[in-house]
C-alpha cells in the first residue's frame, strides 16, 4: 500500500544576480558577459533569492495581472494523497517559499561541473514561516563535511541540474512569455518612459545603462535573449537531519526522518531584471501510523 503524502507546488520569480561568461565567477560588477551591477547597486554575488529584498529588485514594468513584476516564490497548490484520495490543503496556498543560507548555482566557470549540470549549494528549502513552517536541507553527501568545491563531480551531479536545454513550450506555458524579443522590445519602451519620468540622477543613470544594454541584447539576441528559453531541471531527495514540520494540526504527522523529494525547474532568465522563473514541487510522506 502506498504511503500518504503531502505535495506542495510552488512557483514564482527569483532574483539571480550572477556574472555571466566569460566574466570570472566572482566578478563583482560584470564587464565581458551580459549581466551587470549598475551604479548604486550591490555587487553581483551569484546568490539566488526566492524572497528578494527591495534593494535587489530593479524597477520594471508590470507583467500579466501585476502592476509591477511579481517577485517572490510562493505555494500555488498543496494537497494530500491518501489511498488515491486527493485533498487540498488550503492553509498552505499563498505561503512564501524560500531557499535559505544564500544558495548559489555552483559551477565556477565550468570548473566544478559541465555547464548545465550544476547544483544549488547549499540547498535548504523553507515553506511558510514561524511555528507552522516546513523546512529541511539536502546535503549533497550526508555526514560529509567537505565543501562543495572539494567534492567529486559525480557527487555534485547527484543534486545537479540534468543539463540545460531550450524549451520554449515549457517557458511559455509556465510564464506566459512566448516571445522574448517582444518582451525586450516592450522593456526598452518602458525604460524610455521611466527615464523621462525619473528625476534622481543616479536612478536615471541606471535606467539609461539598462536601456543601452537592452538595445545591445536586441541587436544580438542569440546570447542574453536566447537564454530566456533555457531551462535547468532538478530532482533529488531532501534528507537532511534537521527537518522542521508544524508542531500541531494535520501536518504535524509528516515524517521528519524519511527522505522527502523535490523536483523543480529553473529558467526564463531575464538578464535585465536579473530574475528567473522557478516552478516545482516538494513531496513529503506522512508517518506510517501503526
Amino acid at each position, binding site marked *: 500500500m502506498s504511503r500518504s503524502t503531502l505535495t506542495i507546488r510552488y512557483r514564482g520569480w527569483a532574483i539571480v544576480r550572477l556574472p555571466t561568461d566569460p566574466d570570472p565567477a566572482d566578478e563583482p560588477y560584470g564587464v565581458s558577459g551580459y549581466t551587470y551591477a549598475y551604479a548604486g547597486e550591490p555587487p553581483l554575488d551569484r546568490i539566488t533569492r526566492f524572497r528578494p529584498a527591495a534593494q535587489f529588485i530593479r524597477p520594471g514594468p508590470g507583467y500579466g495581472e501585476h502592476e509591477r513584476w511579481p517577485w517572490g516564490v510562493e505555494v500555488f497548490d498543496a494537497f494530500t494523497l491518501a489511498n488515491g484520495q486527493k485533498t487540498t490543503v488550503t492553509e498552505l496556498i499563498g505561503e512564501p517559499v524560500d531557499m535559505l543560507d544564500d544558495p548559489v548555482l555552483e559551477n565556477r*566557470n565550468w570548473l566544478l561541473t559541465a555547464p548545465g549540470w550544476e547544483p544549488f549549494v547549499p540547498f535548504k528549502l523553507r515553506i511558510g514561516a514561524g511555528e507552522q513552517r516546513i523546512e529541511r536541507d539536502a546535503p549533497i553527501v550526508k555526514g560529509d563535511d567537505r565543501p562543495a568545491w572539494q567534492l567529486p563531480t559525480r557527487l555534485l551531479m547527484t543534486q545537479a541540474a540534468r543539463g540545460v536545454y531550450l524549451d520554449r513550450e515549457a517557458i511559455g506555458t509556465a510564464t506566459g512569455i512566448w516571445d522574448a524579443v517582444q518582451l525586450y522590445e516592450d522593456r526598452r519602451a518602458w525604460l524610455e518612459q521611466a527615464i523621462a519620468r525619473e528625476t534622481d540622477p543616479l536612478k536615471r543613470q541606471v535606467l539609461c545603462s539598462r536601456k*543601452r544594454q537592452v538595445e545591445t541584447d536586441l541587436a544580438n539576441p542569440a546570447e542574453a535573449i536566447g537564454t530566456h528559453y533555457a531551462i535547468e531541471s532538478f530532482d533529488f531527495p531532501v534528507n537532511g537531519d534537521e527537518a522542521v514540520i508544524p508542531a500541531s494540526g494535520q501536518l504535524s504527522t509528516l515524517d521528519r526522518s524519511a527522505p522527502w523529494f523535490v523536483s523543480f525547474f529553473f529558467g526564463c532568465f531575464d538578464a535585465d531584471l536579473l530574475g528567473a522563473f522557478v516552478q516545482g514541487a516538494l513531496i513529503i510522506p506522512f508517518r506510517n501510523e501503526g
Partner: protein
Amino acid sequence: MTDFDSERSKLIGAIQLASELEHALCCAYLFCAHSMKRHGDPGTTPEQIEDVRRWRKAVLRIARQEMEHLAITANLLAAMGEAAHLKLPQFPVRPGIEDLDFHHIALNRFSPESLGEFILYELPEKAGTPKEQELRQVLTESHLAEDKDLLRKLNTTGRTGIAALYKQAIAERICVIARSMQREKDLFIGTPDSQVSNTLAFYTFPPIDPGARLYDVRIETVTDQDSALAAVEAIRREGEGGGAGDDTSHFAVLSQIYIELSRHRCRDGDFEPSRRVVSNPIYLTRFHDLRVLGATDQFVVTYEPAIEAMRIYDAAYELLLRMLTRFFATANTRDRQLLAVQSVAFFPLMTLVLRPLGDMLTDMPAADDLDERAGASFNCGRGVDFVPDSDLALRVFASELRALHERTRRLACSQDLEESMRERFEFMAENLWRMAYNLTEGRQDGAT
C-alpha cells in the same frame, strides 16, 4: 639551401615574430583593461563609470582577439609542420625590425596616451577610412594637448606596422613560395588534426554552429595556400578593419573610445578613467635580477603583498603557457589528457585566476605610502618548455597548481589586505585546488 628552404625559413621567422607581437599586444591590452576604474573608485561620476565599463569590455574583447590571433599563428605554423610559438618578450618590448615601423609595446594604464599607442599599432595600411577621418576631425577640433600629440603621430607614423608584417612578410611570401602546386604541398605538410579550432578550445551554451564566433573569437584553421591567406586576412581585417562601415575592427573600436574619451575630457578636464597604475611594473627576485633590470621605464614594486600577488600572477601565466604549449603540440591526439588540459587552461585558469588577479593587483599600492597601484608584470622568466609525457604532464601541472593554491591561501590570510580582497583570494585558492584535483584524481570522477 634551396630558394624554397631559404624562403620557408624567413616565412617561419616572420610568423614567429607575429606571434610574439600578438602575444605582447594581448598582455598590453589586458594590463590596460585591469587598470580601468570600477564602481566605487573615487573621482568619477556614475555616468563616466558606465562609459568606462563599456570601454573596458571592448578592450577585453580586443585582448581575446589578440589571443585568437596568437592561436591562428600557431595553426599557420602547425600547417607547416612547426611548433606553436608562445614565447612572451620582456616588457617594454622594442621591436627593431628592418623596413617595418613598430612602436614599442609597454604595459601602461588606460589613458589617452596608451590608447593612442594602440591606435597607431592597429592603424590601417591605407589612410582615409571613415573612422580615421572622424578621429582626425575630432583631434583637429580639440584643444587638448594629448589630442594634438596623437594627430601629429598619425601624420608622421609610417603605415608599415603589424599589418605590413602580415601582408609583406607572411602573405606575399606564402604566395611566392607556394606558386606551384608541388611547392604548396611541400610548404603545407602539417595535418589538420594538429590544429586548434573553436570546437576544441571552448564549450558553449546555447550550442551554436562550430564555425560561429564564441566569446568574439573564431580560430581559423589552415590546410593550404588559400586557407592560409584567408587566416592572415581574418587577422588583418579584425585589426585594421574591412573598409567603410566596419565599426568592429580594433582600429575602429579604439578610435571610437578615443573620441568618447576626448569628449569627456573636454567637458571635465579632471576626468581620470583609470587607476594610477605604474607602468611596466617589476619586482626584484634573488635569481632573475639581471634579466629584468635595465630599462628606465620600469617601476620596481616594493609593497610585499603586491609582490607576492605579482609572483602568483606570473607563475600562473607561465603555467598557462606551458599547458597551452602541450595543448597545441598534442592537439592531434584528442585524448583524455588533452581534454583535461583544455578544461583547465582556457576557462578556469584564465577566468578564475588571471583575470581577477590582474584586477585585484590594481587595488594594491605599488609601494608603502604611495598612491600609485601595482599591476601584472607578465614576467615569464622560465619560458614555456614542453613537458613530454602526457600523464606526467598532468601531474606536473597539478603540482604547480597546488603550489599556487598554497601561496594564494597564505595571501588570503594576510592582515594587510582588506576583507573583500582576502575573500577573493580565498575563492581563488579554492579554485586552484580544484583545478589540480580535476587534472589528477578528479579525472576518475568525470570532472573532465
